[in-house]
């Protein structure tokens, strides 16, 4: 006789037949829940379906890849080892247990009728072993998650009303399932019981005599619990099981991380059209259904909050609360019983019903403060961390755009914009001073050196910032030493990054169009820049205006020059012993340039690269991003000081190397406020290299000559 699974022992015959109709009832509740939830997005089913089909046709494969890697394979979730582990346990466990239950159902209700038995002998033993293992991990995962919520209680974790009950329900499902198995094994012991190794342990504690009366009770409770779990998916945190994969599929594909949205295009706007284009969002009513779903996919895990520099510094912003706050304002339209589906979904788009609370926005409604919107550093740490792939920065940007359109901006921001508009730089320095000092030094303008391979885009900071001018000079020395044929642009002006990130899209576009027109003739050159912010704008944003530029960061070019052996370096300073590198958000996280700067530092003679705890894609902003270098918001601690202390405590460097003018300015300042000027030097990587150039080291000729490639 084959070893097979005993189906519904101790249960009346009818029990098996009840499961399906009963399931239908619970699934009906679930379906209604989903319907209500999706109503809140203002979806027009037909249009949405058409959009979905179009998306799937065009970029279906890439979208599925997104779902598989971020969703099914938990690529982001595992960034936090503990939470990652227990999520895998619960998710993997539940997945296997569900598949197991479905296999049993298939075997019992379909295959057995045609005389096929799959679950027997070896296959069955493996099945029992696998499901017991899955259940073990599942229960362990639930306990770990409960332990975190009830004992560890990290600040970034909010125990919403449903959080603990849902986990308890899951835990109950796992434990009751194992107990049912234990009861079966206690009353009807089998030779292969050892394969159900967890159930066997339970069996040891179950008195066999009690089984016939206790088993049916627990079985019914287990069944109801399982069906309840399904039914409550759309009403609880469990909604993420559906919302996140769907959002991952719907997410815009192929947009570089650094690229910001473009809400309208001035070039395409009809001149006689009086209507002002939509500038940002006042409330969630201004969002399309895909972005409503994006908000709704937030499970409130708090990872974004943990890594947000603004939040850590005690500013009013928490990316978690921003998204949660917006999410909570998603309202389903009132649906009276008996209303037809089509009517209900039309209601959402009906202007009259949407206008309730007209003129109100999320600021006046108290969902979020203006300070919170301005606090965002656009560093992208939240987005890098988010397992649901929510684009937090796009929301702060849209809120800023809205504030601009209402004129609700700070004086410093207005002054900044006027300066960029009039002087072509945010420093409000005269435009004629921008390149004068370099041209006076004999650095050629592109007109004088049309054959240049590289155009050195100096950037506002590199041109006007006192400390940054030293970096510009250092870069020029390195370029000259390596024999790079380059030129500058006499008419260079602000790229507009800060204008875009502040949310004044119109001014940004006017500036961008002007720049694009000026730069177009040089599109065949490679643009070299020391500023990751300029890098982003030149490379990613100007594409919207038809200009596709080749852009290289100075650390990338230096790494290349060193590889080619074009830079001869000699030891400069014994104090260079330990160099820590701070990854600028706009270079690292946003453009994936992590290795070039490190290669360059490692090639500095006598230097050892040390890594701070927060490095690479986990880097912590210097505090200047997203326009924050130019205005102040209330905070408890300076972000630059926080970061500086963290670097020093985790890496103990002698030199802090940076690769961004904003980072340099911030840390230069922080070193002074922290009183660390004697212990720590802050330098751009270009300065480290320029300091080691053999040409100006004649007095230190005893230094050993090294070439970078050696």
């Amino acid at each position, binding site marked *: 006789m084959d070893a097979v699974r005993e189906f519904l022992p101790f249960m009346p015959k009818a029990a098996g037949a009840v499961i399906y109709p009963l399931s239908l009832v619970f699934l009906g509740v679930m379906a209604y829940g989903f319907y209500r939830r999706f109503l809140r997005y203002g979806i027009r089913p037909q249009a949405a379906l058409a959009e979905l089909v179009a998306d799937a046709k065009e970029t279906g494969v890439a979208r599925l890849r997104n779902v598989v890697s971020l969703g099914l394979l938990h690529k982001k979730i595992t960034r936090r080892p503990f939470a990652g582990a227990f999520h895998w346990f619960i998710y993997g466990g539940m997945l296997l247990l569900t598949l197991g239950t479905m296999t049993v159902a298939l075997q019992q209700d379909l295959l057995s009728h045609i005389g096929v038995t799959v679950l027997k002998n070896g296959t069955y033993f493996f099945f029992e072993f696998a499901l017991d293992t899955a259940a073990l991990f599942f229960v362990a995962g639930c306990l770990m998650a409960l332990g975190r919520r009830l004992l560890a209680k990290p600040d970034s974790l909010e125990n919403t009303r449903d959080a603990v009950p849902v986990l308890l329900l899951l835990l109950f499902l796992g434990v009751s399932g194992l107990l049912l198995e234990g009861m079966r094994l206690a009353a009807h012991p089998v030779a292969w019981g050892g394969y159900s190794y967890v159930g066997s342990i339970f069996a040891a504690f179950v008195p066999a005599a009690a089984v016939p009366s206790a088993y049916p009770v627990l079985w019914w409770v287990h069944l109801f619990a399982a069906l309840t779990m399904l039914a409550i998916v759309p009403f609880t945190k469990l909604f993420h099981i559906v919302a996140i994969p769907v959002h991952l599929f719907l997410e815009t594909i192929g947009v570089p991380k650094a690229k910001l949205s473009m809400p309208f295009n*001035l070039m395409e706007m009809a001149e006689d059209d009086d209507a002002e284009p939509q500038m940002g969002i006042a409330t969630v009513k201004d969002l399309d259904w895909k972005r409503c779903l994006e908000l709704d996919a937030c499970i409130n895990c708090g990872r974004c909050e943990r890594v947000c520099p603004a939040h850590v510094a005690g500013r009013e912003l928490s990316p978690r609360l921003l998204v949660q706050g917006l999410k909570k304002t998603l309202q389903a339209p009132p649906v009276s019983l008996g209303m037809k589906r089509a009517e209900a979904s039309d209601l959402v788009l009906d202007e009259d019903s949407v206008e309730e609370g007209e003129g109100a926005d999320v600021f006046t409604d108290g969902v979020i403060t203006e300070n919170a919107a301005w606090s965002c550093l656009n560093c992208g740490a939240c987005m890098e961390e988010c397992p649901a792939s929510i684009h937090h920065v796009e929301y702060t940007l849209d809120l800023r755009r809205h504030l601009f359109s209402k*004129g609700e901006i700070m004086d410093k921001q207005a002054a900044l914009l006027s300066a960029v508009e*009039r002087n072509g730089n945010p420093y409000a320095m005269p435009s004629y001073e921008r390149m004068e000092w370099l041209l006076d030094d004999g650095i050629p303008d592109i007109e004088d050196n049309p054959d240049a391979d590289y155009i050195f885009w100096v950037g506002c900071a590199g041109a006007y910032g006192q400390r940054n001018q030293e970096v510009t000079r250092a870069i020029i020395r390195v370029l000259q030493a390596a024999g790079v044929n380059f030129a500058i642009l006499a008419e260079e002006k602000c790229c507009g990054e800060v204008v875009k990130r502040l949310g*004044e899209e119109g001014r940004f576009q006017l500036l961008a169009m002007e720049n694009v027109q000026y730069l177009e003739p040089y599109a065949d050159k490679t643009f070299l820049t020391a500023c990751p912010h300029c890098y982003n704008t030149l490379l990613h944003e100007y594409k919207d205006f038809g200009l596709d530029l080749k852009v290289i960061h100075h650390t990338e070019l230096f790494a290349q020059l060193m590889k080619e052996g074009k830079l001869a370096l000699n030891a400069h300073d014994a104090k260079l012993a330990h160099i820590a590198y701070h990854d600028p958000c706009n270079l690292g996280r946003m453009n994936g340039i992590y290795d070039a700067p490190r290669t360059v530092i490692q090639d500095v003679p006598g230097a050892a690269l040390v890594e701070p705890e927060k490095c690479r894609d986990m880097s912590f902003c210097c505090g200047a991003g997203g326009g924050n270098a130019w205005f102040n918001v209330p905070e408890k601690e300076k972000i630059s000081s926080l970061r500086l202390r963290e670097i020093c405590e985790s890496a103990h460097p002698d030199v802090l190397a940076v690769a961004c003018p904003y980072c340099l300015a911030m840390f230069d300042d922080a070193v002074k406020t922290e009183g660390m000027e004697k212990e720590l030097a802050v330098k751009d990587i270009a300065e480290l290299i320029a300091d080691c150039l053999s040409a100006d080291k004649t007095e230190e000729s005893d230094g050993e000559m090294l070439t970078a490639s050696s």
Partner: protein
Amino acid sequence: MHIVVCVKHVVDSTEIHVDKKTNELVLRGLSTKINDYDKNAVEEAVKLKKELGATVSLISIGPRDAVKTLKEAVAMGADQAYLLQVSPRQQLDTAQVSLILSKMVEKLEPVDLILCGEVSEDGYNSQTGARLAARLGLPEVSYVTSLTAAEGSFEAVSTLEDTAETVKGATPALLTVSSAINVPRLPTAIQIMKVRSDRIKQWKLKDLGLEDSALETPSVTMLGYEIPEQERKNIMIEGTPAEAAKTLVKYLEEEKVMN
């Protein structure tokens, strides 16, 4: 209530510089903009508009390019603008400007309040407001840092270096406002672009009943200019940071820049 604001289109003073080679003042080819002080006047008018339901008209004399400036000011919240267009090369002194402006105001009457910036960034004469008031025979208050108005009357604080005078008067009147009176709003580029051109009406001299000769005879003519040498004290403060800070505070107190 009808408020008229005088707005000047000026070269960007932060961009004026001396050409290193020729040692001449570079005035041509510079970016142009709205006179910043006039933005304060527009802002104050728009505030009164919101408060009292006033109508705000802008008047300006300038080249075609001044339409840009007027669009920005209309986007701030004014109702309409009137430009007397002159050639970009046209030089006008304050006597000529105030004459033309007075005719523009008369054409717009009834007018209750006329607001001007206290000074223009390019000429720096601080005369136009007062001259215009004189031509119109209106009471005038200069350097206003605070203003309340009602139908038929106004109350203003005029702040000079050391004193702040509060004055009351009946409208119509002319006030020149100082930059301390408010922080002008910044319309977005889109809002400026979306100002329809028909809200900016262009007038010619003859529309004002003036002859071309009104532009011809300035009462003062610039003969030349030089850049004055500035004396700097060049004080170096010695000592430890704590001592140096004390010395610095002492100097600053002597200069009366600290209170």
